[in-house]
C-alpha cells in the first residue's frame, strides 16, 4: 500500500531531473562551478522545444505572414495565429482577437497608455499605481499624466511588502479612471489581491490593467475570472523567447481605442485622403511582427501545460520555503518582502555588505542572482535601501542548488558579521 501512496505522490510532483534535460544552458560550468541559475524573474531559460522551434521555423517555414499566397506564407500564418489561440487558452480570454502581440510587457503597457490613455484620460482624472511597481508600470503613466494633465496616485505598502488595501480603498474615487498594478512583484515576490482590487475599481467605473510579467509563469491567470480590462506579460519570463509580449484587452475597449503605430498590417485601406484601420487585433500590430519568436513561444506554452502550472507552483513554493528557512539562520541575513502570498522570489540583503558584492561573490561560485534596484527604485527608496540581492526560482531549480546558495551565503555573511 505504501508503495502505491509513493507512486501517487510522485505523480503529483515534478520530475526536476527530467525537466532539466530539456534545458541545455543549465548544463555548463561557470567560473569552474556548475551553473545554478537563480535569475528567473529577469528571464527564464528556454527548453529545447523552444530552441528547436526557432531553428525549424527558419529552416522550413520562414516567410511573411498574412500576405503571401504561397504555401510557406500560409504555414507561417497558421502557426502564428495558432500561437495566438494558445495564448487565449492560457489566459482564458473570450476570443483570440483580444490577444495582441507586442515586444514585451513594457510595450504592452505603453500601448495602453498611448492609445486608451491618450484618448480617455482627461485633465484632472486620476490613475492609481502602487509603491511596488516596476518602472515600466510607472513611467508610461507619468508621461501620460504630464501630457493629459492627469494625476498619478500611489498605493502605499506595509513593511512586509504587502499592499495597504485600506489605503487603496481610500484612494479610489469617481475621479479614478485607471488602476495599473502588478499581480506579483518582481522585487519582493508579493502576490497582490488583484481580483478584489479589480472589483473595487470597477465599482468606481475605473479600468484595471494587470502587470502580469511575474505572475503568468507561476500562478493561474484567468482574465475572465479576474475580470481585468488589460493584462500585460512577456514571453521571455515564461520559458519563451525574448522580443515577444502580450497585451490582452477587453474587446469593447480595444475597439474604442485608437491605433498605436501606423504602418502595414494595421490598415484596411489606405488613401491619401483617408485611411481606414484594420479590425482588432491587427489594428495594434503595425509592421511585420516577430514571427519566429511568436511561433517558438507556442512551444513554451506547451512546455508549461505539460509540466502543469499547479505542479510548477508547488515545486517553486517548496523551494522558496526551503530557501527562506535555511537562510533565515544566517547571521546578517535580512529578507526584504515577507508577504504571506508570494511567488518564488527571495529578495534579501546581507548586513554590512553591498548587494553587488554579494552578487559578484555568488557569481564566482557559479550562482547567478540579480542585484540592484530591480527597476523598482521608488520601492527601494521606500525601504531606504540601495537595492537587494534577488534569487528567483523556476521549475528547473533544485534543493541541492539552494544548498549551494546557502553555503555561499554563509561564507559571504561571515566576512562582515
Amino acid at each position, binding site marked *: 500500500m505504501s508503495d502505491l501512496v509513493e507512486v501517487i505522490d510522485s505523480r503529483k510532483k515534478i520530475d526536476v531531473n527530467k525537466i532539466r534535460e530539456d534545458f541545455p544552458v543549465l548544463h555548463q560550468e561557470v567560473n569552474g562551478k556548475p551553473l545554478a541559475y537563480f535569475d528567473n524573474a529577469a528571464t527564464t531559460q528556454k527548453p529545447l522545444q523552444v530552441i528547436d522551434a526557432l531553428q525549424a521555423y527558419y529552416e522550413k517555414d520562414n516567410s511573411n505572414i498574412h500576405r503571401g499566397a504561397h504555401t510557406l506564407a500560409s504555414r507561417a500564418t497558421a502557426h502564428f495565429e495558432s500561437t495566438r489561440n494558445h495564448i487565449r487558452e492560457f489566459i482564458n480570454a473570450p476570443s483570440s482577437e483580444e490577444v495582441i502581440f507586442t515586444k514585451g510587457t513594457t510595450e504592452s503597457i505603453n500601448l495602453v497608455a498611448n492609445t486608451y490613455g491618450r484618448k480617455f484620460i482627461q485633465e484632472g482624472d486620476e490613475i492609481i499605481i502602487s509603491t511596488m511597481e516596476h518602472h515600466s508600470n510607472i513611467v508610461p503613466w507619468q508621461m501620460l499624466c504630464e501630457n493629459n494633465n492627469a494625476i498619478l496616485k500611489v498605493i502605499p505598502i506595509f513593511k512586509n511588502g504587502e499592499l495597504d488595501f485600506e489605503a487603496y480603498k481610500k484612494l479610489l474615487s469617481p475621479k479614478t479612471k485607471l488602476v495599473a498594478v502588478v499581480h506579483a512583484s518582481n522585487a519582493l515576490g508579493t502576490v497582490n489581491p488583484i481580483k478584489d482590487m479589480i472589483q473595487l475599481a470597477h465599482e468606481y467605473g475605473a479600468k484595471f490593467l494587470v502587470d502580469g510579467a511575474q505572475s503568468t509563469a507561476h500562478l493561474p491567470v484567468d482574465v475572465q475570472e479576474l475580470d481585468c480590462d488589460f493584462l500585460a506579460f512577456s514571453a521571455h519570463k515564461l520559458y519563451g523567447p525574448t522580443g515577444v509580449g502580450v497585451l490582452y484587452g477587453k474587446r469593447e475597449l480595444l475597439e474604442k481605442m485608437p491605433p498605436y503605430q501606423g504602418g502595414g498590417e494595421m490598415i484596411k485601406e489606405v488613401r491619401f485622403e483617408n485611411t481606414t484601420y484594420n479590425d482588432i487585433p491587427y489594428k495594434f500590430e503595425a509592421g511585420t511582427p516577430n514571427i519566429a519568436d511568436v511561433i517558438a513561444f507556442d512551444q513554451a506554452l506547451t512546455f508549461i501545460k505539460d509540466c502543469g502550472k499547479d505542479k510548477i507552483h508547488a515545486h517553486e513554493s517548496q523551494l522558496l520555503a526551503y530557501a527562506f528557512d535555511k537562510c533565515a539562520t544566517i547571521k546578517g541575513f535580512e529578507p526584504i518582502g515577507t508577504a504571506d502570498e508570494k511567488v518564488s522570489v527571495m529578495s534579501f540583503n546581507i548586513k554590512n555588505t553591498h548587494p553587488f*558584492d554579494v552578487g559578484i561573490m555568488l557569481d564566482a561560485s557559479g550562482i547567478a542572482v540579480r542585484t540592484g534596484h530591480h527597476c523598482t527604485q521608488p520601492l527601494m527608496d521606500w525601504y531606504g535601501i540601495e537595492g537587494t540581492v534577488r534569487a528567483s526560482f523556476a521549475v528547473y531549480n533544485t534543493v541541492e542548488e539552494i544548498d549551494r546558495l546557502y553555503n555561499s551565503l554563509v561564507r559571504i555573511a561571515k566576512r562582515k558579521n
Partner: protein
Amino acid sequence: MEDINAIQDEIIGEFEILGDDKESTIYYIMELGDQLPDFPETERKEDNIIKGCQSKVWLITNLQDGKIQFLADSNTAITKGLISLLIRVLSGRKAKDIMNADLYFIEKIGMGNIIGSQRSNGLAAMIKQMKMFALAYQSKIDA
C-alpha cells in the same frame, strides 16, 4: 618608475598563485580592500567621488615630500579591492612617474574577466582620475 613595475610584477605573481580560481580571486581582492587605511568620514562627500564608476568611489590625495599619497574608499568591497591595487602601485610616487606609468598588471592579471566590461570602464575612470591628480601636481611643481 622601476618601483612601480616591481610592485606590478609582485601583484602579477600573487594572482598567478590564485590561478584561475575565480572564487579565491574575488575573495582575495575584497580582503585587500579591507586592509586599506580608514578613509576620513568628512571626505566622503560628493566632490571627491570619481565619475564614471558604477560603484561610489571616493579619492583624495596629498603631497608628502614631493610624493603623492592616495586615499580611497568605495561602497562596494570589490571596487575597494581594485582601487587598493592601484594605490599599492601608484601611491607614494612622484607625479611624473604616475603620469607615465604603464599599468600592464591590469591586463596581466585578467582584470577584465574578473570584473566584467562595465566595471572595466569604472577602473579606467579611476586610473584617469589618479593620473589627472598627478598632472595637476606636476603643473604646480613646474609653475
